[in-house]
C-alpha cells in the first residue's frame, strides 16, 4: 500500500494533448475517482500510473519512489479492465495465480492465496472453470481477485463496472467498495458515471479536456463546484448568466434577470480554495448555479418569479420539470406532494440562496 503522487504530468499523442499538466495526490488507503466524460484524459492518467503509457513530461511517485522509468511488470500494481481481460485459455484458478508465479511463492502458499482471493470475491467454487463459463459480473470479480491477490501497492480500476448491466452494476459497486475497505488498498477508479463516483469515493478528481477541473470530496464537488463544467457534469443544474453587484467576506451578491438579486454564500468554497467564484469581484460577469433539486415550485402568484411548466418527466416520487421564464429555460427536480404540476401550468419559483453557487463565466465553451 502506498500513496501516489502526480507532479505536473503531461501527455501528448502526436499533436493531440491528452493531459495538460496534472497534479494530484492519492492518499494511502484512499479511494479516489477520476471522473469525466470520455476523452477527458482520465484513462490516460490511469495508464500512465500503471506504466502502460509513459508521460511526455512530469513525475509519478508511488510511495517515495519515482516510477517513471520502472517497467510495468516491476511496479506491483493491480489493474482491473473494463472488459475483464481474463485469459480465456486459463482456468479461473490459473488466472488468479498468474501474477503469483512471478513472485517466488511456494505452490502451497499459492493455492491458499488463490483460495483466499476467491473467498474475498465470494466465488469459492469456480476455480476449475474457464472464464467463458462465467457471467460478466462473475468475470469482473475474478479480474478483481486476480488484481488483489498479488497484494498490489495500488489498485487501478479502469471503468470496471461499465460493462455490467444496471442492476448488477449497483450490487458490484457496493461490493467493490466493501472489498476495498476491507483490504485497505490505495485505489484509483476511473469512471464517467457520476453516481458511481459520488457513492464510492473518498475523493473525486473531475476532469475535462485533459485538465483537472476540481479535486474534492464527493460533497465538495457536488455542493461547491469550482467550475461551470463540474456543476454541469455532476447532477442536474441551471446556470444563469449573472452580474456581480458586490461582495463581502462571506457572501457575493449576484443579479440575474430571472431572480433579481441573490446573495450566495462564499465561505465554505473560499475556505477550500477550490471555488474559482471566490475570485470574482464587483462588475464581473458570472454564472449563478442552481441545482435542479433546490429550485422549488409552488402555486402561481405572490412576489416570486413566475415560470411556465413546459414539460413534466414523471419519475414516481419525483418529477422533473422543464420550465421557462421568458426566454430562459430551467429545470427543477421536486418531490411530488399530492399531484405533480402539469405542463402548461404557471408556477412560482423559490430558490434557496445557500444552495446556490457563484461561478466564473464559462470561458471554455
Amino acid at each position, binding site marked *: 500500500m502506498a500513496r501516489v503522487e502526480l507532479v505536473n504530468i503531461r501527455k501528448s499523442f502526436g499533436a493531440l494533448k491528452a493531459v495538460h499538466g496534472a497534479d494530484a495526490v492519492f492518499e494511502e488507503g484512499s479511494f479516489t475517482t477520476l471522473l469525466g466524460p470520455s476523452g477527458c484524459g482520465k484513462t490516460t492518467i490511469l495508464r500512465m500510473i500503471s506504466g502502460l503509457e509513459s508521460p511526455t513530461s512530469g513525475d509519478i511517485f508511488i510511495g517515495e519512489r519515482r516510477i517513471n522509468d520502472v517497467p*510495468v*511488470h516491476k511496479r506491483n500494481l493491480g*489493474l482491473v479492465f473494463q*472488459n475483464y481481460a481474463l485469459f*480465456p485459455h486459463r482456468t479461473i484458478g490459473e488466472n488468479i495465480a498468474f501474477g503469483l508465479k512471478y513472485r517466488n511463492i511456494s505452490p502451497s502458499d499459492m493455492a491458499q492465496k488463490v483460495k483466499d482471493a476467491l473467498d474475498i470475491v465470494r466465488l469459492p467454487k469456480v476455480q476449475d472453470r474457464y472464464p*467463458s463459463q462465467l457471467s460478466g459480473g462473475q468475470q469482473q470479480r475474478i479480474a478483481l481477485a486476480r488484481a488483489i491477490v498479488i497484494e498490489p501497492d495500488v489498485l487501478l480500476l479502469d471503468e470496471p463496472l461499465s460493462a455490467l448491466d444496471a442492476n448488477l452494476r449497483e450490487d458490484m459497486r457496493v461490493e467493490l467498495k466493501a472489498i476495498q475497505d476491507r483490504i485497505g488498498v490505495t485505489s484509483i477508479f476511473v469512471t464517467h458515471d457520476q453516481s458511481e463516483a459520488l457513492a464510492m469515493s473518498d475523493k473525486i478528481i473531475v476532469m475535462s479536456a485533459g485538465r483537472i477541473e476540481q479535486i474534492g470530496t464527493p460533497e465538495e464537488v457536488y455542493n461547491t463546484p469550482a467550475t461551470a463544467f463540474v456543476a454541469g457534469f455532476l447532477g442536474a443544474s441551471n446556470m444563469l448568466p449573472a452580474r456581480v453587484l458586490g461582495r463581502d467576506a462571506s457572501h457575493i451578491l449576484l443579479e440575474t434577470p430571472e431572480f433579481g438579486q441573490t446573495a450566495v454564500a462564499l465561505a465554505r468554497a473560499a475556505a477550500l480554495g477550490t471555488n474559482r467564484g471566490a475570485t470574482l469581484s464587483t462588475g464581473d460577469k458570472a454564472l449563478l448555479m442552481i441545482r435542479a433539486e433546490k429550485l422549488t415550485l409552488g402555486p402561481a402568484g405572490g412576489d416570486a418569479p413566475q415560470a411556465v411548466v413546459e414539460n413534466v418527466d414523471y419519475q414516481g416520487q419525483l418529477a422533473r420539470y422543464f420550465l421557462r421564464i421568458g426566454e430562459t429555460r430551467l429545470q427543477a427536480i421536486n418531490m411530488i406532494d399530492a399531484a405533480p404540476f402539469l405542463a402548461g401550468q404557471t408556477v412560482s419559483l423559490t430558490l434557496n440562496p445557500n444552495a446556490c453557487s457563484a461561478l466564473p463565466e464559462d470561458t471554455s465553451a
Partner: protein
Amino acid sequence: MSDQSLPADRRPWILLSPALVFITALVVVPMAFILVYSFYENIDLAQDVPAFQFGNWQELLTDSYYRTAIWKTLRLSLIVTGLAAVLGYIPAYVIAMTRYRHKWLLLLLLIIPFWISFIIRTLSWIHIFGNQGALNGLLGLLGLTEAPLSIMYTEFTVIVGFIHVFLPYMILNIYVSLEGIDQNLEPAARTLGATPWQAFREVTLPLSLPGLAAGCLLVFVLTGGSYVTPLILGGPSDFLFGNLVYDAVVTELNWPMGATLSFALLLFLGSVVVLYSKLMGMDQLSKAFGR
C-alpha cells in the same frame, strides 16, 4: 438442440445441400473416376484397357522410387512449413498489433502478389538467383565473387519459391487469430508481473495457436501437393510426389498409373490432415474462445 422439432433438424442439411451437390458433382464423382482408373491397365502410350487389377498399386508399394518421393515430399513440406511459420509470425504480429491507422494498407500488401500469376512469381526467382541474375550481378559488381555462384536449380531455390508463394496464407491465418485476441490481455499480464516476452509466451502465443496451426496445415498441404515450383526452380533430383503424377500423366501418358499416384497422394495428405487435427486438438483450442 436435440429437443428441437424435426423440421428444424433438417434445416442445416437443406442449407448445406447446394454445396453438397456441387462437391459431389465436381469432387466426389471425378475422384471416383480416378479411383476406377487406377485399376485399369496401361498397355502402351495412352492406351488403357479397362480392367480390375492391382498392378499399379503393387508397383507403387514395391518400387522404392515412390517411397523416396514420399519421403522427399514429407521432408520438404515440413521444412517449408516450419520456415513459413517462423517467418510468417513476425509480420502477422506486427500487422495485428500496430497502431498505424491504415492497417488495411499492410493487409493489401499481402494480397497484391496474388494479382500476379503464381507462375510468373515463381519464374522471377530465376532473375534473382540465376547465373546472370540480380544477386550474382551484385556480388560480381562488388568484386566478392570471381565467377557466378550456382544457386539456381537446387533444393534451396525450391524452398525459397515455396515460401514466397505460400507465406501470405500463413501470415493471414496467424493475423486473423492474433486480431481476435483482446488487446488488453498482454497489458493485463504485464501489470501482473510478466516481462514483455513472458506476456507474449504465456498469453498471445497460446491464443494464436489455432491460427498458427491452421496456417501450418494449409502450407503443408499446399506444398505437399504441388509440382510446378520444383519443376521451375528445382534440379533433376528436386522432385515431389506431385511431379511423379505430372510425369505419369503428361510425359508417359500412363493415366492409370497417374490415377494411382494421385489417389495415393490424396490419401497421404488426407491422413496428415486427420492425424493433425487429432493431435493438435483443434476443438480443444476453439473451446477457449467459446462465447
